[in-house]
């Protein structure tokens, strides 16, 4: 924002100060919204194509070249559909829920540094803001489930609340190590702290474990497939958005996908070095190169998401919550200890060894302790 303001003052000194200020505020928002909505539209296409290939299908390939216009066709179809509101629904809340689903997803974008020197708002509490706001979508989710006056919606919403609230805890704990390492809550500060060879936090033992925990929690947080209990098609119709049609349904889809993108952006910022990469500091083209780096890393996160969605079956509710409370939470707490060991180690090699050892012992112990729960065989009454 400041950078754009300075640019405007430098190249158009005649522009009134107030207008320049307004432009400096609005321009990044427009750019970020435009870019991420385009990426969202492409993402739906990429995901359907990749899932198709994983399942030996071809995916959408009828609308436009290789099906590229499929998102447009989907949007038109959803826009022209009738908007159905159930008779018994709480009309106001039913209307508000899809709007509130989208808002937090976009708000998180404000603190994601997309390129070098380009972040809509460089808050000094950036990560805290992102984690707090991204959780707010659970409120909209429960509003949708409650207002629909439908048992499946309510079940989905209750599952969603249980899931998001329990995965929030290990997620924040996994983020703590990053804050300890960077010494700041600002997202730009965290990226800048990852400079240097192997400086990305994912290249360190505590960073790797933190990244895996954070990524799993992010997938659970936005209800991606191994953890998509709130909208489990085969169990509860469509979960909390069962009673939504037309554009409201589209808003739910959009909120979900944009939330996945923004959570990916936060993950990239915190663990994968954000916009950093070879060439991101070049004088003239640095911002283009750094934006390319950011989106390439975001692409990797998205590929992981799609790959997991195409592969793993949905977990049960008890497995889901047990996984969060019994494995991820203790592991993330041990991760903080490993970070402390790293911090107080006399040199890098000892730090590496010690923190890796702490984590290895913790992982083996936790896996042993959870072994009974992990491979528990269910017995069914009528199936031997």
């Amino acid at each position, binding site marked *: 924002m400041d950078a754009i303001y300075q640019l405007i003052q430098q190249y158009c000194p005649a522009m009134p100060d107030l207008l320049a200020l307004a432009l400096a505020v609005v321009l990044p928002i427009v750019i970020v919204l435009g870019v991420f909505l385009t990426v969202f539209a492409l993402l739906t296409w990429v995901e359907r194509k*990749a899932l198709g*290939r*994983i*399942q*030996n*299908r*071809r995916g959408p*390939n009828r609308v436009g070249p290789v099906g590229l216009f499929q998102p447009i066709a989907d949007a038109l179809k959803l826009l022209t559909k009738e908007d159905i509101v159930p008779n018994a629904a709480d009309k106001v809340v039913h209307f508000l829920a899809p709007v509130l689903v989208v808002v937090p997803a976009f708000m998180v974008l404000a603190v994601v540094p997309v390129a070098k020197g380009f972040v809509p708002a460089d808050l000094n509490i950036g990560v805290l803001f992102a984690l707090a706001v991204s959780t707010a979508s659970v409120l909209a989710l429960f509003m949708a489930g409650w207002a629909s006056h439908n048992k499946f919606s309510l079940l989905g919403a209750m599952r969603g609340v249980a899931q998001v609230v329990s995965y929030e805890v290990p997620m924040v704990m996994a983020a703590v190590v990053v804050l300890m390492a960077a010494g700041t809550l600002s997202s730009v500060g965290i990226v800048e702290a990852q400079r240097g060879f192997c400086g990305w936090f994912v290249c360190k033992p505590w960073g790797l474990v933190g990244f895996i925990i954070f990524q799993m929690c992010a997938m659970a947080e936005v209800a991606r497939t191994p953890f998509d209990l709130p909208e489990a098609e085969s169990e509860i119709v469509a979960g909390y958005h069962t009673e939504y049609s037309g554009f409201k349904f589209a808003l739910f889809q959009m909120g979900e996908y944009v939330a996945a993108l923004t959570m990916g952006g936060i993950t990239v910022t915190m663990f994968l070095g954000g916009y950093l990469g070879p060439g991101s500091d070049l004088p003239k083209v640095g911002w283009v190169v750094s934006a390319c780096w950011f989106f390439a890393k975001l692409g990797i996160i998205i590929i992981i998401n799609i*790959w*997991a969605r*195409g*592969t*793993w079956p949905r977990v049960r509710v008890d497995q889901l919550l047990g996984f969060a409370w019994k494995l991820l939470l203790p592991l993330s707490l041990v991760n903080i200890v490993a970070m402390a060991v790293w911090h107080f180690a006399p040199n890098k090699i000892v730090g590496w060894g010690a923190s890796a050892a702490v984590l290895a012992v913790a992982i083996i112990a936790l*896996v042993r302790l*959870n*072994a009974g729960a*992990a491979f528990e065989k269910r017995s069914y009454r009528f199936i031997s």
Partner: protein
Amino acid sequence: MSRFLGKGLIDGLIVTTKNFVGSYFDGGRKDRMFTYQYPEERMKLPENSRSFPFLVYDGAPENMRCTACKICEMECPAQCIYIVMERDANGKPRQRPKVFDIDTSVCMQCGICAEVCPFDSIKMDCDFERSKHGRFEDLLAHLPELLKSNEYYHQIKPAEATRVDATRRPTKKPTDGTATERK
């Protein structure tokens, strides 16, 4: 340590990766990507597939095998066949249909007409692209539309057509020059 926590998950990821990569590099083999891109790419239909009856003729359409015996009309469970025998000026039957209509909207493609035909005249087609614009008149298939050559029969069902040619007795029809008259 043949089985560690998460091995099943990783095995699954490997399987899906194989599918994903294989779908691009299998050179269009149908054992992996089995989808036929229908309008551009067509599946070879098995010989026993059947869609709708047609009438076989040998050589020229005037030389049709059908003798208007009406067995198929009587046997048709859906009663979708309507036949009127052709008669000459004296009212003598000519052993060929004047009208032969099959209603597409009623026909249930059972193939019983083809089974009962003693002259091997009515056979089941493989052509499934029979949608029409009109609901009523367009769906009523008339004689010229139903007549197809023996070569076409050989083309769609080679084994069955060869068998029929070997066993079929030529139908005896009055050779009074009706073929030229009809022109």
